[in-house]
């Protein structure tokens, strides 16, 4: 009684004060709980994804011995690496051009490269498919890679562009002043400072490609079924813990890559951008 008399409304104040923290916590739970459930049931002994019957690795064994899944994974990896390489190369070149050079139509090019970011992916995919059949291309690796490049290029460009625009232009003046020609300035001064961003762009592009479903649906052909497409078709036949196990493996792979990137390149990026 006395405590309440001293501080009226203490409860409400406490709720208001704590609200942002609680909301954040609940949001994270909401996002991460499904992952926890998925990973847990990957170890289920039974065939159910809701009733726990015991611990087992059998679904993991099933995943790694499933030829279809392994094939799909190989396709996904090839497409991810190839499309990431292409879109990082184009994105980095464009980013350097947009931020470090001035030429007519520079702003238009900048906007055009970011366009796929806001266009609905499905529209992009349909348009691409129509263009490809018009051009008489057979669906396969090439079309798949082109599609994925289209999806990841805005991200690759944005990342390298952000890094390029934070570069000190006076460093290029300094390089020229000390006798470096344009090519030497680019390879010895500009590019080395962009390496962390280029690496990040590559990893992000590869991840986007590896996860992609919509674009793959339209651009993959016979024999080039990607992993997400394979998982989607497996779901149609019923949900088994095999999918859980595959999901758990993919989460593990993603987290490993993320930690690798963060551990190796994040400190480097922070250092480079420090003035």
């Amino acid at each position: 009684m006395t405590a309440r008399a001293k501080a009226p409304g203490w409860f409400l104040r406490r709720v208001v004060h704590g609200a942002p923290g609680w909301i954040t916590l609940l949001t994270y739970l909401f996002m991460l709980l499904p992952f926890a459930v998925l990973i847990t049931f990957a170890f289920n002994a039974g065939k159910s994804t809701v009733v726990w019957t015991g611990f087992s690795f059998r679904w993991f064994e099933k995943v790694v011995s499933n030829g279809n899944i392994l094939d799909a994974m190989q396709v996904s990896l090839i497409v991810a690496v190839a499309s990431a390489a292409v879109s990082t190369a184009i994105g980095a070149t464009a980013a350097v051009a947009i931020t470090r050079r001035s030429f007519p139509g520079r702003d238009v090019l900048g906007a055009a490269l970011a366009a796929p970011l806001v266009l609905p992916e499905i529209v992009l995919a349909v348009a691409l498919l129509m263009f490809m059949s018009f051009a008489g291309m057979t669906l396969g690796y090439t079309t798949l890679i082109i599609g994925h490049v289209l999806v990841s290029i805005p991200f690759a460009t944005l990342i390298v562009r952000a890094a390029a625009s934070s570069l000190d232009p006076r460093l290029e003046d300094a390089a020229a002043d000390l006798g470096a020609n344009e090519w030497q300035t680019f390879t010895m001064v500009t590019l080395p400072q962009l390496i962390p961003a280029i690496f990040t762009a590559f990893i992000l592009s590869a991840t986007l490609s590896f996860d992609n479903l919509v674009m793959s649906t339209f651009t993959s052909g016979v024999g080039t079924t990607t992993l997400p497409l394979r998982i989607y078709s497996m779901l149609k036949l019923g949900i088994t813990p095999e999918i859980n196990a595959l999901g758990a493996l993919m989460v593990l792979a993603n987290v490993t890559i993320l930690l690798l990137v963060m551990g190796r390149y994040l400190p480097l990026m922070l250092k480079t951008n420090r003035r």
Partner: protein
Amino acid sequence: MSVSDKDPSQQKPVVELKGVEKRFGTFTALQRMDLTIREGEFFTLLGPSGCGKTTTLRLIAGFELPSDGQILIAGQDVSQVPAHLRPVHTVFQNYALFPHMSVLENVAFPLTVRRIGKAQRLERVRAALDLVQMGAFAGRKPSQLSGGQQQRVALARALVNEPRVLLLDEPLGALDLKLRKEMQAELKAMQRRLGITFVFVTHDQEEALSMSDRIALMKGGEIVQLDTPTGLYDRPVNAYVADFIGETNMIPARVIETDAETALVEAMGTRLRVSGTQGAAAGSDVQLAIRPERVCEDMAELENTAEGILADVEFIGTDLRMTYRMPDGSRVVMRRQNSGRAVPQPGETRRLGFRQDDLRLFSR
């Protein structure tokens, strides 16, 4: 080169600007500038921000190309030659060290891009680092160095390839006062020893006076006066120069009469004789300028005196700075060394003396 053993005082031009003009859109940053910088001198471009001093430097370096006119370096027309092919190097205000390279790699850069062999490269880098006393830091990254150390590395990098001309763009601007004084002395000594032409840009008149052989004082894209430090200080061509360099009393005055050598003016409630008429006609309103340290209290042999009431005494360690209110309302600041004698009290009426050679007339 064969010039290395010649006397630097020999007046051979190394940088020449002939009618150089620089426009950015409708803005004219530099107006038809003619300038000759001599071999081996310490030349300073001085002026407030926006006066065109940095533009002049960037034109010499080749970061900007002139809109009009000719730039010659060592007799060669380089007006349209890009920066990387000019025999000049720059020390930048923010040092502009390459953050991803070590000190050694930074200093080696001008040699690396010229494909100089590794052994010779290392030897020259060592020599340059020793010159600026940074030999022990070769393996560090620029981010691990203090501002003063980064400055030294930037200097070594600009000197390692032995440029004909070293351009310095406010290189000491970011250093604290003490370090700045040290670096000023060191730069000056280094310039003497190496005999390389230094073109130095600063807005700090004290720095310019203490280091330079010659100074070009700029304003609004033009050179107002090009002179030695003493010339600039003792013989300013106009009120702007007198005001920008050091402290000057500007006293309103009227010319009474002039003869061939002197002018008689009315100022501070009395009449004073001034050496040189500066083209002022009798009856015109002018400004009378005198440096605070040239105002005398010792009346012996002085032709010009005026009486003033001491309004304020400021004690600044080595000096006393006294402000007098004159009968016509103008104020005269006088500086006297702190000799340990009694400090005069405000309110006293005292007689001040002005040597006629120390007084200068400027149009109003």
